[in-house]
């Protein structure tokens, strides 16, 4: 410990009074913001409570078999959600199968191959797809997509694959195929945007190392960059799945709304979201309503789990940045 050899100075008049004070402003601000922030947990709690409470009569009456029973009889009061669950999964998975190659292609093109001047405009246009309201997709689906499918796609599919159970039966338009295709278009921008961020987060050294070893441009991307971001890309795909599971309007306008389980893509089908949209106002009995609430609860739980899984995978690659949580 050393002291400074200086001449003592005359003590100034104590100004310590001026330093004392409470800080009411800070306390008030924090309290106000905390109060606002608490609305979210409260809302979620209320949502869950209400879903469970309203679904409870149906849950008690039908038990777990609700998930695999196919009977949906409002008159007799017997309900089973298997067709909707099947349809939700089938449409979402087919949509994913169609959307992922497209979205991944867009993401890779935009991050690796597109000339600089083209990147922003193309990215913007793809993002715009996400801004189109679901009901507008539905409208376009009914009057443009379905005729196109009927006139050009289904005959070709039937010619090539009509012998499989996936393309058999009469095609009336509203079908699992139509619902899946429109879903695919709708989720492409989400998967593409997140995939793009994942690919951008891959360190440049990965690509450079591959190129340094003599890889062609494509090889560098496909063997070095993409595998590095593998977890995140998977997460992007699952995020798209999460979005597809919850889509309502476009699906209910295109999928046929029939309680049926079938392997053929050309047949009408049903999803959980579409069923709620379609039948909620018609539900005249309490048990009918309760069954629909139970469907809502199942839908809620499934989407929460799928989204959580997606975010976990994405976070692994992007390390805690807000990738994927942004509203498009």
């Amino acid at each position: 410990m050393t002291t400074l050899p200086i001449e003592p100075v005359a003590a100034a008049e104590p100004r310590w009074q001026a330093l004392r004070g409470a800080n009411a402003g800070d306390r008030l601000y924090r309290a106000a913001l905390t109060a606002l922030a608490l609305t979210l947990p409260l809302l979620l709690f209320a949502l869950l409570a209400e879903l469970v409470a309203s679904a409870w009569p149906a849950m008690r009456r039908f038990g777990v078999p609700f998930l695999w029973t196919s009977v949906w009889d409002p008159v007799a009061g017997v309900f089973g959600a298997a067709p909707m669950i099947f349809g939700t999964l089938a449409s979402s998975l087919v949509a994913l199968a169609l959307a992922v190659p497209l979205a991944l292609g867009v993401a890779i093109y935009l991050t690796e191959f597109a000339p600089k001047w083209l990147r922003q405009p193309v990215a913007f246009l793809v993002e715009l797809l996400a801004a189109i309201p679901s009901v507008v997709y539905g409208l376009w689906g009914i009057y443009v997509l379905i005729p196109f499918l009927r006139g050009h796609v289904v005959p070709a599919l039937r010619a090539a694959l009509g012998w499989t159970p996936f393309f058999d039966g009469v095609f009336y338009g509203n079908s699992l195929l139509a619902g899946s295709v429109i879903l695919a278009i709708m989720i492409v921008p989400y998967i593409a945007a997140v995939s793009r961020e994942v690919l951008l987060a891959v360190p440049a050294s990965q690509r450079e190392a591959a190129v340094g070893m003599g890889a062609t441009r494509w090889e560098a991307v496909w063997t070095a960059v993409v595998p590095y971001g593998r977890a995140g890309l998977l997460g992007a795909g699952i995020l798209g799945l999460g979005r597809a599971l919850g889509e309502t309007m476009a699906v209910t306008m295109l999928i046929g709304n029939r309680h049926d389980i079938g392997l053929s893509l050309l047949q009408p089908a049903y999803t959980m979201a579409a069923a709620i949209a379609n039948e909620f106002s018609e539900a005249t009995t309490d048990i009918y309503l309760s069954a629909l609430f139970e469907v809502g609860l199942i839908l809620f739980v499934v989407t929460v789990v799928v989204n959580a899984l997606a975010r976990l995978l994405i976070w692994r690659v992007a390390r805690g940045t807000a990738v994927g949580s942004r509203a498009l």
Partner: protein
Amino acid sequence: MSARRWRRRLTSGAMTGLVGALSFLAVLALVLILGDLIAKGASSLDWSFFTHNPVPAGETGGGVANAIVGTAIVVGLAAVIGLPVGIGTGLYLAEYGSGRLGWVVRFVADVLNGTPSIVIGIFAWTWLVKPMGHFSGFAGSLALAVLMIPMIARTTEEMVRLVPHSLREAALALGYPRWRTSLRVVARTALAGIVTGCLVGVARIAGETAPLLFTALGNLNFSTHVLEPMQTLSLQVFVYATGPFDEWHRLAWAAALVLMGLVLLLSLAARWAVRQRSHGSAR
């Protein structure tokens, strides 16, 4: 060059072409949809379309005046409720959100962000429509606000976090209390980004239909009374598109075009807001 090398080069070129083609396909889908909207809807856009109400079923003519006003009211009210709560929550997360409550709020926001909007719709029905005994535009607004809040909260938090820590320190070192630093310095710097997030959020809910099916319900007449059922453009498109009359289908395209125009306008405004503030960057 060896044959092998040639083949690899070819593959690379082909794959480059493929991803380019896929991107083109995606953009094509957008162009087709927008193009069809304009092609099939623009011709129906006349003065009476914007100023008249729907006519009885089966008749020709009529417009979407009630839906335009209804959209403005329902979305406007939702924004008035949802924006302050969302921004406030976002500020909370950025300023005080490093503790346990912050983690919970963030988690809840992400869960709600991924919740299907139809589920929010039946939630609003149970809590607002059922007790009130009737449908209302107000219930619709609240359902939309519930959709909006977690979205806005996350984008606000993100934008505020982008403000460099050094700026906050400079303000604090000057003797700014924390609340003033948060509002007058940090939030002010992030303002453009926050506004963008808000505009994007409003654009999103303007297009929503599912949460309104059992709350605002829809109304064929002109109404500005929020405690009554109210029509919005999205509901109108749905009813007309799925209806049996060709006339309705024609009107559906026009209404969809108007709705898309509104959403586009808001999205472009969001982009413009960011560009405006990014001039005069530090050297």
